[in-house]
């Protein structure tokens, strides 16, 4: 059955009247929309450069936090709590990034009597430390990547373990994440150097230089499971998302279902994800990430204790609104559906649109959006944080929006994505749209051969296809002709603005 019946806010059931969203951009907008549908008042927060950002325009109220510098605005716990107090918000949704996985913030909310919409601080803390998380998981019978379960400062411990596992191995920072503080080592002679440089990088980036070691898996897939857990011990999973296509360890394309899972493997991994949530005392929405090797073995990677960027693909295939679920769980309601009632349908793909220049090593590309036309149509969802005229600030993440398509099968979804991207016009800054288009058009993607080294293997040193350069030159000149005529008032002979009274002859429209 379809699970449209996630609990209706029945009279007598508590629900927040007002929620503060401690974030910006597309995720803040997305959270505001569900709140509005549920009749919950919303409070946006903003920094100096975001005064007229989309999330501010869409919220019921907005509170300025300070300068663009994240520490003075979106990362400033004191100011966020003061804003909640001032506006009377009963709960705070952290979105993703910024303070979403900061146990101190969750704890401070609790102390201030504000509900943090996310897991308990202790779960965030435990799962944020990789060795603690590995220990919790292996005790619960969840397979972890072979390697050390404790950090060590002794190079001998590393070389012995590496010898036992066989090279290549990977050295990781216990406090690490996002691809930082990691070194792959393929030979004993490289170990001391990698150990030292990884430690100093981890100290700098996380203030904690403790390291451990794992077996390196050869071009694995990244497959994660969405989980939901309420405060009454009910835990379900909402199936998987395949997120293997990454650049600099950042996901750029996600899909569900995974082309790599059999129904048997899916059931096993789903059970492992639920066990992982139970073992860590998890409450609210979370994601259990796994690596899947070529032989179909899966290993626990980490738990993301927040709403994921790629959550919409799960929403469109399960029919659930994850933000609604999060709000209900945080308000103390129980899950109203059981595992066997959740039945995903069809195929969904998401891609992330970044303000980066794909022609110049993906350098950040902040600036003003001059023209914006967004794709629409059957099976298309766009979660966007931008508008025409908006100045995309240089201080934050380059994510502009997420384009999500849904169709009956993978190939139809892929074709729909190509069509939607071809209709997505963002001019004034550089975006990754032209690059994404070529990824979706590639034979490797079409055949589902998506592994974590996909981009390096198939799109290294990518240059855009200039096949339509002459058309672009013609458009430039035509635009110039139209403008010249408009500005000089030479109207009679000019192809003026399109009007319904003009005949188009044999034009195909």
């Amino acid at each position: 059955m379809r699970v449209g019946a996630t609990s209706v806010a029945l009279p007598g059931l508590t629900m927040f009247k007002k929620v503060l969203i401690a974030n910006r951009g597309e995720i803040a907008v997305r959270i505001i929309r569900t709140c509005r549908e549920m009749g919950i008042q919303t409070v946006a927060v903003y920094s100096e450069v975001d005064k007229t950002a989309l999330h501010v325009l869409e919220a019921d109220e907005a509170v300025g936090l300070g300068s663009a510098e994240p520490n003075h605005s979106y990362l400033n716990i004191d100011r966020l709590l003061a804003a909640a107090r001032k506006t009377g918000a009963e709960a705070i949704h952290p979105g993703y990034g910024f303070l979403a996985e900061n146990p101190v913030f969750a704890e401070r909310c609790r102390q201030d009597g504000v509900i943090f919409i996310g897991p308990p601080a202790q779960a965030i803390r435990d799962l944020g430390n990789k060795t603690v998380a590995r220990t919790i998981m292996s005790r619960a019978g969840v397979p972890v990547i072979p390697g050390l379960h404790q950090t060590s400062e002794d190079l001998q411990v590393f070389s012995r373990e590496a010898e036992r596992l066989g090279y290549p191995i990977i050295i990781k920072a216990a406090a690490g994440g996002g691809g930082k503080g990691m070194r792959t080592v393929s030979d004993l002679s490289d170990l001391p150097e990698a150990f030292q440089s990884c430690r100093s990088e981890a100290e700098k980036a996380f203030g904690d230089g403790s390291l451990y070691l794992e077996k390196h898996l050869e071009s694995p897939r990244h497959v994660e499971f969405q989980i939901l857990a309420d405060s009454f011990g009910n835990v379900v999973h909402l199936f998987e998302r395949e997120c293997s296509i990454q650049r600099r360890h950042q996901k750029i394309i996600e899909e569900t279902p995974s082309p790599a899972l059999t129904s048997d493997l899916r059931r096993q991994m789903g059970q492992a994800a639920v066990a992982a949530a139970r073992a860590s005392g998890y409450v609210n929405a979370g994601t259990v990430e796994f690596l899947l090797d070529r032989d179909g073995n899966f290993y626990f990677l980490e738990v993301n204790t927040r709403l994921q960027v790629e959550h919409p693909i799960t929403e469109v295939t399960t029919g659930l609104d994850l933000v609604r679920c999060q709000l209900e769980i945080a308000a103390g309601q129980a899950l109203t559906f059981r595992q066997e009632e959740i039945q995903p349908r069809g195929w969904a793909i998401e891609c992330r649109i970044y303000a980066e220049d794909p022609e110049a090593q993906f350098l950040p590309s902040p600036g003003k959006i001059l023209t914006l036309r967004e794709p629409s149509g059957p099976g298309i969802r766009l979660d966007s944080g931008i508008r025409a005229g908006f100045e995309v600030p240089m201080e934050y993440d380059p994510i502009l929006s997420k384009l999500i398509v849904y169709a009956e099968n993978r190939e139809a979804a892929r074709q729909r994505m190509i069509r939607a991207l071809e209709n997505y016009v963002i001019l004034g800054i550089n975006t990754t749209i032209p690059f994404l288009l070529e990824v979706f058009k590639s034979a490797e993607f079409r055949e589902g051969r998506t592994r974590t080294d996909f981009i390096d293997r198939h799109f290294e040193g990518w240059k855009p296809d200039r096949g339509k350069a002459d058309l672009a030159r013609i458009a430039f000149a035509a635009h110039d002709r139209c403008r010249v005529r408009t500005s000089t008032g030479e109207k009679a002979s000019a192809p003026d603005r399109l009007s319904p009274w003009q005949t188009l002859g044999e034009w195909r429209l």
Partner: protein
Amino acid sequence: MAGRYELKIGDEVKTLEWLPGEGPDQARVRISEAEYSVRFQAVDDHQILLQVGGRTVQAFVAGGANGKYVFIEGGVYRVEELDQARKRKSRGGLDETPAEVTPPMPAVVVRLLVREGETVAKGQGLVVVTAMKMETTLKAPFDGVVKQIKTTLQAKVMPGDQLVEIEERKAS
């Protein structure tokens, strides 16, 4: 009304000749060896409906700092009109020096790696800037001595801004 455009896309410069067509919304366009028959119609300030050969194309055009962005079916082309580029150069003169220490994108200065008077080698890091959580190190374009540091920590800087002036040391 005929016209001529020197249009650069990437590294490729081509001359486009715009010749009158049969009607006011038509033209014949020559680019290198190729000739196209074109119908065109402005939809609004940024949108052009084109028919080139037998094919209908919606194009979007918007002005940027260095030329215009042209959108065709998901592809974005940065088109620079060379005439204009030459004018800009004669005003600023910056573009002609490949030796400038300038950020490739709008950014904030987070670290200064050298001091005035310091001798630097070609390729040595001078300034670290950050934008959208990504750091970029600007390097010395040649061997020389740091003559002047023209920026400060936390300064917002733009492409074209000279952050460090280096006096080149010629090989003797």
